[in-house]
């Protein structure tokens, strides 16, 4: 019998704000929540994925890309709790791991000459918030986003894809993050469409580039505008997806300029031939 070929089914860039768990818990029909829930349903029921690789934008070591090889992943709390201003409720989450896929990623990354290492970490809210709202229960492999160069993130994305394709598994890559991410300017009760100008401009430029299959060209956005927007994880997540997806264009599933200064967008990427 010929072993089945693995496939990177889809990649997603999704919001990860802890407020999403509150909205979901309250049964909100907010677009960000509905889209995440629809993605979760698609991953399990339509794509029939075996595993999810999730790269948290809050796991930002410097020395390497890290992979958690655990068979169980428990969440830990890493956001502000109520009743502090902008505090959120306390949530937890536990998911099964996929040690074989995790170890294959480390081996392949090291063979490609990238700094890839094992570390026990668990799930911070950058990973468990979207997974919890999605409602998925399949195994996950947490990987760090890391403070590495955009070019290295692209190469790491290519290694992830190759590893998946050689694994015989059907896998989804989830790389959460926000576009504009100026938490110092946030307004909890911002009116609809109330959003600061540089953030709006930056988000629009990124969305246009991603939709055109030019995610890597976000590097060419005016540095002053980039600094004003301060995107989460320096948008390393988009570069990782670009490497993994073969520079596929991203479909914008929803966009919401939230709390005055945070760009909540959801992109879905097919995997294209390279």
């Amino acid at each position, binding site marked *: 019998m010929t072993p089945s070929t693995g496939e990177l089914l889809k990649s997603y860039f999704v919001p990860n704000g802890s407020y999403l768990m509150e909205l979901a818990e309250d049964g909100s029909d907010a677009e960000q929540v509905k889209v995440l829930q629809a993605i979760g349903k698609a991953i399990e029921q339509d794509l029939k994925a075996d595993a999810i690789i999730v790269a948290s934008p*809050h*796991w930002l070591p410097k020395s390497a890309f890290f992979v958690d090889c655990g068979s169980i992943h428990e969440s830990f*709390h890493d956001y502000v709790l109520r009743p*502090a201003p902008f505090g959120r409720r306390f949530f937890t989450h536990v998911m099964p791991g996929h040690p074989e896929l995790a170890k294959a990623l480390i081996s392949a990354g090291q063979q490609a000459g990238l700094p890839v290492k094992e570390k026990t*970490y*668990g799930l911070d809210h950058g990973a468990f918030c979207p997974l919890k709202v999605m409602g998925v229960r399949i195994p996950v492999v947490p990987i760090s986003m890391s403070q590495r160069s955009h070019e290295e993130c692209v190469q790491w994305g290519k290694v992830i894809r190759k590893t998946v394709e050689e694994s015989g598994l059907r896998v989804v890559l989830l790389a959460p993050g926000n576009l504009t*991410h100026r*938490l*110092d300017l946030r307004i909890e009760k911002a009116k609809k469409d109330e959003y600061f100008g540089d953030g709006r401009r930056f988000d629009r430029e990124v969305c246009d580039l991603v939709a055109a299959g030019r995610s890597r060209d976000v590097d060419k956005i005016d540095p002053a505008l980039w600094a004003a927007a*301060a995107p989460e994880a320096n948008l390393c997540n988009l570069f990782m997806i670009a490497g993994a997806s073969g520079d596929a264009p991203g479909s914008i599933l929803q966009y919401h300029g939230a709390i005055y200064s945070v760009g909540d967008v959801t992109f879905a990427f097919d995997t294209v031939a390279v």
Partner: protein
Amino acid sequence: MNVTASLDTMNPQFIYDALRKVGTGRATDPLGRQWLIEFTGRNDDDSMQVRIISPEDRTQELLVTEEDFHFSDNKVRIKGVDDFIGFMHPVYLKKMRGFTRGNIPTPDIAGPTLP
């Protein structure tokens, strides 16, 4: 003395200040005294600069790695600070453990840039 953990979210025992780029843990020793553990910098090799302030205001600056921290469910010890045993609520203890392993939390004090 038994140090009983209670989750007091009005007085978080680990916070991240994105203006100063500093994480601060607040632990209680077996005598009920407070210690501060300030993470003041992360180096390219993921070693960290840590400032430990004892109940007597004695300050100790250390270069540490995550392996130098020994976490149990309720307390933490740090290699090189032999007289320190710090109790924290498990929620904040895990938050601090995550920080030693590369987590950058949502900031308690927001700044114009991250991390």
